[in-house]
């Protein structure tokens, strides 16, 4: 395990929640922590940041031990060098953006002029030069997020913890901000733990996904790995949603969106270039032969796996290298005589496909 990363092993009890997890995040890697509400995601962040004391465990970052229950070592949050992005960003309302960003530097002993200069550099780097003298209430959601990021990074954080970074933004700004956030995280090169409930955010921002259910990590891996071999129904629900990074062609009306060797035909007037494509498994129809119809997206696929429910079946397919999940009724599955290895045709209507930047 690279020394520069974040390593945590936690055991904690809080009300009805019994949290027990082990995770390693490498430097420059972002792990998206997902799970149903109440699973312990925010508690996990609070424990790593030192805002809460674990019953037992060990947390280290960059080779430096922040907490070791057995050795009796517990560094206060201010001694840890952890950058936290709280759900509402927690910007100090009585300070302007510049003073907010300079706060961490001042707290760690920098002189006023020096801290403000460094703050200016960070604001410049994140494209916030014009906003630097404004108070948080006069900033847009996206600007506030960037100021919060600049503030955390400027204080010399060695690891980043983000709690629903996109949560406070409206849908329209989310896409643009997501792209910017990805860039900032990549440039920062720190081990990053990101709590989100949004699968698109997890795919766009996370290198790996860690799923927390009732205080335990049920699965950790790349989005693809989770989609292919989900270990719990929650993971299957989460990952088996036919979500792919694509490249959307320019133009209007029906156009192409490429995901590897697979070409989708979609309606996405506002979107161009790198984007995310999603459609529900229930929107996929299967047939034994290629049938003419209105569907613009028809793919030859091979059945990989079948997961039977009470009245429906999830069919995991391989379509030219792309993993796709279709949901059909039991009788339909029986009629088609589906089994692993069988070749079928999968069709999805363009109107059922969503494309997000």
């Amino acid at each position, binding site marked *: 395990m690279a020394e520069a990363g974040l390593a945590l092993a936690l055991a904690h009890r809080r009300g009805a929640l019994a949290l027990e997890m082990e995770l390693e995040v490498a430097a420059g890697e972002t792990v998206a922590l997902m799970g149903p509400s109440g699973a312990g995601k925010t508690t996990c962040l609070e424990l790593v*940041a*030192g*805002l809460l004391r674990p019953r037992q465990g060990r947390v280290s970052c960059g080779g430096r031990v922040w907490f070791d229950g057995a050795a009796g070592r517990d560094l*206060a*949050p*201010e001694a*840890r*060098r*952890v*950058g*936290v992005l*709280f*759900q*509402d960003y*927690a910007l*100090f*309302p*009585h*300070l302007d953006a510049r003073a907010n960003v300079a*706060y*961490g530097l001042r*707290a*760690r002993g920098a002189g006023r002029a020096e801290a403000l200069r460094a703050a200016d550099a960070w604001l410049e780097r994140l494209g916030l030069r014009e906003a630097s003298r404004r*108070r*948080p*209430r006069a900033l847009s959601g996206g600007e506030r997020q960037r100021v919060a990021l600049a*503030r*955390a990074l400027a*204080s*010399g954080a060695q690891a980043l913890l983000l709690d629903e970074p996109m949560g406070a933004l409206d849908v329209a700004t989310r896409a643009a901000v997501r792209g910017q956030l990805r860039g900032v995280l990549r440039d920062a090169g720190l081990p990053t733990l990101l709590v989100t409930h949004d699968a698109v955010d997890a795919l766009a921002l996370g290198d790996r996904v860690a799923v927390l259910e009732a205080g335990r990590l049920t699965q950790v891996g790349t989005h693809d790995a989770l989609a292919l071999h989900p270990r719990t129904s929650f993971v299957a629900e989460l990952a088996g949603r036919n979500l792919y990074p694509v490249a959307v062609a320019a133009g209007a009306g029906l156009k192409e969106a490429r995901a590897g060797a697979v070409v989708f035909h979609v309606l996405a007037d506002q979107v161009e270039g790198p984007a995310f494509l999603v459609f529900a498994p229930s929107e996929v129809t299967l047939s034994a032969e290629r049938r003419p119809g209105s569907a613009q997206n028809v793919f030859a696929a091979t059945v990989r796996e079948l997961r039977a429910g009470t009245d429906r079946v999830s069919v995991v397919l391989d379509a030219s290298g792309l993993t796709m999940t279709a949901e059909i009724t039991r009788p339909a599955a029986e009629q088609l005589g589906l089994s692993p290895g069988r070749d079928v045709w999968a069709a999805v209507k363009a109107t059922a496909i969503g494309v997000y930047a």
Partner: protein
Amino acid sequence: MGREPAAGEGDDARRDGLWGFALLAAVLPLFLGLALLALLTSLTPATLVRHLASETALRALALTLRTTLVATLITVGLGTPLAYVLARRRFPGRGVVDVLIDLPVTIPPVVAGVALLLAFGRRGLLGRSLEAFGVTLPFTTAAVVMAQVFIASPFYVKAARAGFAAVDASLEAAARTLGASPWRTFRTVTLPLAGPALLAGTVLAWARALSEFGATIMFAGNLPGRTQTLTLAVMTAIETDLDTAVAVATLALLLAAAALLAARLLSRRLEDGRG
């Protein structure tokens, strides 16, 4: 719908239709205003100043200013940590402390005075131990301060507690993760944001200390120069020298009004400043 616009209403806001309320609403302000107006206009400004320059009035004023200042400092010094702990921490017995802080506001000040006597009087609970060291509290200037702190501190603690509680705990958490020690966090984040509330509470407590009467006269007595505050002076003077009594009463009223005005102005300016 039968809405009748009351005289003087010019805005577009939807009227609540309770036209009778305007009439009833006017009664209290008139009642308060009439009494205060009578006080303010009773003496000519010249007479007012002449009587204020009397020895009684000046001594009472000096004593009141000294004692209320000390009482306010003690209140703020001890009340701020208390208010913070009450706002942020959960501990067994917190409910009891809450009630304790509220009590002085609800019990008659004279009763508070009796209680102070029983605790700190020469034969009181703590008083007898103090006697052993040669320290007598009743009927001293210190007793005046104690009575004022007893009566006025709840006003500050309640306001300060609300002020602290209104500061989002996540802001304090953010400051800690950015490298600020708990004390630095309090100084640079909590205090500035709770500032207006703390200031308003301080002025309120000072105004209450200024108007303290019952507990003072019971525990500290009515000794000119030593324990005779402005309010006590009014009561004493009214039997012999009405004009001086009125002058001192007017002074007390003006001080209280000045306190209120200062509190509002400062509050508003600080509110604007903290974004």
